[in-house]
C-alpha cells in the first residue's frame, strides 16, 4: 500500500532544508522497500517546527519536526511511515496547542492540501463560497461582505463592503480586480504563506469579487522577493483555467474572469495602492493624489477593486458560512479573524489566526513562548516598519484597529516583531527614517526630504550632539511628515520614530551623557 507523506514547500521550510529532506525521505523509503508518495504542501505556520513532515495513517495525520537531513534515516527506521515513535514525533498536528487554540477561518487548508490541485482544494471545502455567491446577485454578494464587517487587511482597515459597492455601482466597459500582494512589511508573511499554501483561496476570493463588481479581468501584483509564491501562483492559475474555475465560463455560470500574476521589482512603495496601479501600468511606482479613488479610476483609468490578499481570502468563508457567522468573531468594529504573524526574536514564531481582541501579551507569551534568545522582551513593533514600538506596559493592548490607534499604534497587516533587551531604540528610530529615505517614491517633499533629514538628525542624537535640541527637531520634522505627506509612507514613518522616543527615552541620551560628547 502506498503511504502518503507531506513535506512543505513553503519558503521557510525550504530555507530550513525541506527539499533535501523530501529527497532523502524518498530515497530512504525506496532503499527500505517502502512504497511512498510525497505531497508538497504549504506550511501550517508552526515555523519553529519546520521542516515538519506529516504522514497519513489510518488514525489521521501524524507530524514529525523539525526534521533535518540527519534525522531522516532514524525516522524511517523508527517507522515514520506508520506513525512510529521517535523523539521528533509531534502526534496529530492539529492537537499541537499552538494550532489547536487558533480560530482558522482563512488558513484552515494551508499546510494540509496540495496547493496547486483544484481537486484537493475542492475536497477540502474549496469553491463552496463561489458556488454560494453565484446563487446571489451582485448586490447580494456585496451585502454579505458589508454585513460581515470585513475591513481591508492590508493595513488601512477600510470597510471592504463599501469599496466593493463603489466598484459594483461604477459604470464602465472594463472593470478590474487587483490583489495587492506586495507584502513588504517586515514581520509579515501571511500573504506569502497563503499564496504558497492555498493559492486557490485567493483565486476564489478574487473570482467572487469579480462576479460581484462586474470585473472580468484581474491581476495579482506580487513582490519579486517571493519567487516561490510566484511559481505556485502561476501553476495554480494554469490549473484553474484547465479545471474551468477561471476563464470564460467559471463553474459553468457563463461568467468570465481572467487572472494574471505580475511581479513587482523591489519597491516597497508599490504596496500603496495607487503606486501599485502605476507600477502595474508599467510606470514608476509614484503615488497618485486622491481623488479620484481607484474604485472609480484605477488601473488604466477604469474602476478597480484593490484589496489585500488577506481581504480576498476571508471572502470565500464569509460567502459559504454567512456574514453573521464571520461577524460573530472579533470585538467592537474589528470583526472576524486576524491572521497574526509572530516574528523577530521569538521562540515559537509563526502564523496565528485569531478573532480580533487578543492582547499582544497573550500572543507573545502564550503562543510565542518568549524570545528565542531567552532574554527579556524589551520592545515589540506591531504592523510593519510604519508601526509603533510598544514597551512592556502597553502589551495588554488588544489587537483591534481602534484600541491600537488609541495607543498611537496600528494593527497594519498584523505583523508582530519582538526585540529582546539588547535592542538600541535610537538605532531603530534612525532605521525607520533610513528605510523611508530608501523607499520613498519621491513625489512629495515631506517624505523625500524629511526622511533624509531625519537620518542626519538622528545621527547627531546618537553621536550626542545637542541631543535635546536635535530631538526637538526630530519631533518637529515628524509633525510635518505626518501632516504633509501624500501617503502612509511619509505619513506613518513618524510612528515608529516617535514611539521609540516616547517609550524608550533612555536610549536617546546615552551618548549625550558622555563627557567627550559635550556641546
Amino acid at each position, binding site marked *: 500500500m502506498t503511504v502518503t507523506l507531506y513535506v512543505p514547500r513553503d519558503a521557510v521550510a*525550504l530555507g530550513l532544508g525541506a527539499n533535501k529532506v523530501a529527497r532523502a525521505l524518498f530515497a530512504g523509503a525506496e532503499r527500505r522497500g517502502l512504497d511512498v508518495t510525497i505531497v508538497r504542501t504549504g506550511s501550517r505556520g508552526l515555523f519553529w517546527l519546520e521542516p515538519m513532515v506529516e504522514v497519513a495513517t489510518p488514525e489521521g495525520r501524524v507530524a514529525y519536526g523539525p526534521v533535518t537531513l540527519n534525522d531522516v534515516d532514524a525516522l524511517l527506521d523508527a517507522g515514520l511511515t506508520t506513525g512510529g515513535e521517535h523523539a521528533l514525533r509531534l502526534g496529530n498536528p492539529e492537537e499541537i496547542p499552538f494550532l489547536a487554540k487558533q480560530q482558522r477561518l482563512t488558513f484552515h487548508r494551508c499546510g494540509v492540501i496540495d496547493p496547486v490541485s483544484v481537486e484537493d482544494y475542492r475536497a477540502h471545502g474549496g469553491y463552496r463560497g463561489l458556488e454560494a455567491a453565484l446563487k446571489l446577485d451582485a448586490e447580494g454578494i456585496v451585502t454579505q461582505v458589508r454585513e460581515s464587517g470585513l475591513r481591508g487587511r492590508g493595513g488601512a482597515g477600510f470597510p471592504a463592503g463599501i469599496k466593493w459597492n463603489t466598484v459594483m455601482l461604477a459604470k464602465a466597459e472594463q472593470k478590474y480586480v487587483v490583489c495587492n500582494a506586495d507584502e513588504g512589511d517586515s514581520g509579515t508573511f501571511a500573504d506569502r504563506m497563503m499564496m504558497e499554501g492555498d493559492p486557490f483561496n485567493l483565486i476564489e476570493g478574487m473570482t467572487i469579487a469579480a462576479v460581484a463588481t462586474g470585473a472580468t479581468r484581474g491581476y495579482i501584483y506580487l513582490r519579486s522577493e517571493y519567487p516561490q509564491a510566484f511559481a505556485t501562483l502561476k501553476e495554480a492559475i494554469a490549473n484553474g483555467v484547465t479545471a474551468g474555475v477561471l476563464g470564460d465560463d467559471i463553474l459553468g455560470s457563463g461568467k468570465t474572469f481572467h487572472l494574471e500574476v505580475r511581479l513587482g521589482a523591489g519597491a516597497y512603495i508599490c504596496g500603496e495602492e495607487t503606486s501599485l496601479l502605476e507600477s502595474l501600468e508599467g510606470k514608476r511606482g509614484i503615488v497618485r493624489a486622491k481623488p479620484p479613488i481607484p474604485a472609480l479610476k484605477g488601473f488604466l483609468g477604469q474602476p478597480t477593486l484593490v484589496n489585500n490578499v488577506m481581504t480576498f481570502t476571508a471572502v470565500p468563508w464569509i460567502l459559504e458560512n454567512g456574514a453573521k457567522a464571520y461577524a460573530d468573531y472579533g470585538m467592537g468594529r474589528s470583526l472576524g479573524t486576524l491572521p497574526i504573524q509572530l516574528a523577530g526574536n521569538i521562540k515559537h*514564531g509563526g502564523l496565528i489566526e485569531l478573532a480580533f481582541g487578543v492582547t499582544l501579551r497573550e500572543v507573545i507569551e502564550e503562543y510565542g513562548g518568549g524570545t528565542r534568545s531567552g532574554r527579556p522582551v524589551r520592545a515589540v513593533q506591531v504592523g510593519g516598519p510604519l508601526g509603533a514600538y510598544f514597551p512592556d506596559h502597553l502589551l495588554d493592548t488588544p489587537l483591534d484597529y481602534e484600541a491600537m490607534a488609541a495607543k498611537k499604534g496600528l494593527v497594519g497587516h498584523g505583523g508582530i*516583531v519582538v526585540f529582546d533587551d539588547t535592542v538600541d531604540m535610537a538605532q531603530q528610530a534612525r532605521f525607520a527614517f533610513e528605510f523611508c529615505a530608501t523607499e520613498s517614491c519621491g513625489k512629495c517633499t515631506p517624505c523625500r526630504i524629511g526622511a533624509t533629514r531625519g537620518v542626519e538628525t538622528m545621527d547627531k542624537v546618537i553621536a550626542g550632539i545637542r541631543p535635546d535640541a536635535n530631538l526637538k527637531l526630530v519631533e518637529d520634522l515628524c509633525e510635518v511628515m505626518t501632516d504633509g505627506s501624500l501617503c502612509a509612507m511619509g505619513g506613518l514613518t513618524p510612528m515608529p520614530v516617535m514611539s521609540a522616543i516616547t517609550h524608550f527615552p533612555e536610549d536617546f541620551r546615552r551618548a549625550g551623557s558622555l563627557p567627550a560628547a559635550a556641546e
Partner: protein
Amino acid sequence: MLRHEPWSAERASGIIAEHSHLEGATLPILHALQETFGYVDSGAIPLIADALNVSRAEVFGCVSFYHDFRKEPAAGRHEVKLCRAEACQAMGSDALHREILGRLGCDWHGTAADGSATVEPVYCLGLCSNGPAALVDGEPVAHLTADALEAALTEVRQ
C-alpha cells in the same frame, strides 16, 4: 550559479515583441530581459520605447526607479540578497551583515573579492520568524550564519 546570455539587440527585440501585447507591459518586459541577460542593457531602452509607444525617458525612469533592475551585469557568480529589515535586525542581522561583508571583502551592491557573489540588501523576504534570512540565487536561507552562507555559496556552485 546564474547563467545569462550575452546582450543581443535582436534577441531583446524578440523578447519585447512576446510581451508587448500585455496591459502595462513594461515591467514584464524588463523582468524578461533581466532574466535572459542578467541586466537591462541601455540598448533595450529605445527598443521598448518604440514597441510600447512611450518616451525613452519613461522607460529609463522605470529601469532606474525599481531596485531590482540592473544597468550592468552582476560581477559575482552568485546573487546574494540579505534581509536588512526589522525582524531580521531583532535576530542580530546588522552584526551578521558586517561579518559577511567583511569576509567577502565588499560593501552593499558590491562583489566579493573572489568574485563568488554580488551582495544586495533587501527589505523583508517573509521569513521573519526564522531570521536572519537571505536569498541565494533565489533560494531561501533561514537562520542564516556567515558559515551557512559560505556553505550555500559552495553548494549552489555545483
